[in-house]
């Protein structure tokens, strides 16, 4: 997960005090999720690491303007996306951008804790597979990459309202797939 509460403090320390420790801390906080995000575009761990490193190099070079960035988390994701696409264009590799699959299982909570069985997780993954591309992307960015709404909005260039709608669709479909249909008690809702 990325948008850590002290991101703004780190941003200030880098921008106003050239604080190398704050830069390192920011790198530690974002590196893992940014690399996985870049991997989704580049399908190469090495290339993804290079792209994230480039993003952080540019951030340091432009640190005098870092305070003008409203949401540093969103900025880093968008920069990573753009840099990865440029990298890919340079390599003439035009695979479609989609997030890799097994992430959900890898980051899912302990099933006992979550009351979610392996069978349910399989069902959920199947539903996620069948979601429309944008809906799937929103769900995965929130669920697997831990992005906040503002970050998802910046990365996919969509509105917060759209994220609300797409996420609601995804969750509803997952629940329906698990036979937890809210449609059944529809009559009990007051209209």
């Amino acid at each position, binding site marked *: *997960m990325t*948008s*850590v*509460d*002290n991101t703004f403090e780190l941003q200030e*320390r880098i921008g106003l*005090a*050239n*604080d*190398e*420790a*704050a830069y*390192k*801390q920011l*790198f*530690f906080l974002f*590196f*893992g999720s940014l*690399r996985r995000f870049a991997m989704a575009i580049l399908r190469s761990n090495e290339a993804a*690491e*290079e792209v994230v*490193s480039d993003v*952080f*190099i540019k951030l*340091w*070079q432009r640190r005098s303007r870092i305070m003008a960035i409203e949401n540093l988390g969103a900025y880093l994701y968008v920069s990573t996306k753009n840099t990865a696409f440029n990298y890919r264009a340079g390599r003439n590799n035009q695979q479609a951008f989609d997030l890799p699959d097994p992430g959900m299982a890898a*980051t*899912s*909570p*302990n099933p006992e*804790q*979550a*009351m*979610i069985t392996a069978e*349910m997780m399989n069902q*959920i993954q199947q539903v996620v597979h069948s979601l429309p591309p944008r809906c799937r992307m929103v769900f995965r960015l*929130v*669920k*697997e990459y*831990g992005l*906040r*709404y503002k970050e998802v909005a910046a990365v996919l260039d969509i509105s917060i309202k759209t994220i*609300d*709608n797409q*996420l*609601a669709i*995804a*969750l509803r479909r*997952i*629940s329906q797939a698990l036979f*937890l249909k*809210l*449609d*059944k*008690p*529809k009559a*009990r*809702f*007051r*209209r």
Partner: protein
Amino acid sequence: MMPEERTWMLLARVFGREASVPELAELETLLKVHPELYFPVQVVTGLQQKEPLSDLRSLEQAYRHHLSRMADAGIRFPAGAINTPFSLPSPSRSLPLFVPAVFLAAVIAAIYFFRLAARIRYAPIHPPVSIINQCG
């Protein structure tokens, strides 16, 4: 917006860790009126991402590699740059994750408790088997 759609929208906001306190209260009200929703809510909160443990060693390695790329590009930290040691912060995002999850768990528990209490209150009282045998 229909209550059903509204419920899903609120659940989405809880899932995205964007739900405000009034939205959580609204969801609580909806769950009181529609306790049949409690299981979907459990599933949704169970799906929420847990903070993966940071592998400090691999991060250190990646950072060293990053620094060598910076050096290759001729970029160095200024001589006066502050470089205080630090440890990785505890996963501070677990708080926004934790708060709605606990809130919803409490709501679900309360609903379950009151339904159970109501069931017990109206359940027929059977005399113990030993008394029945004595009467027989």
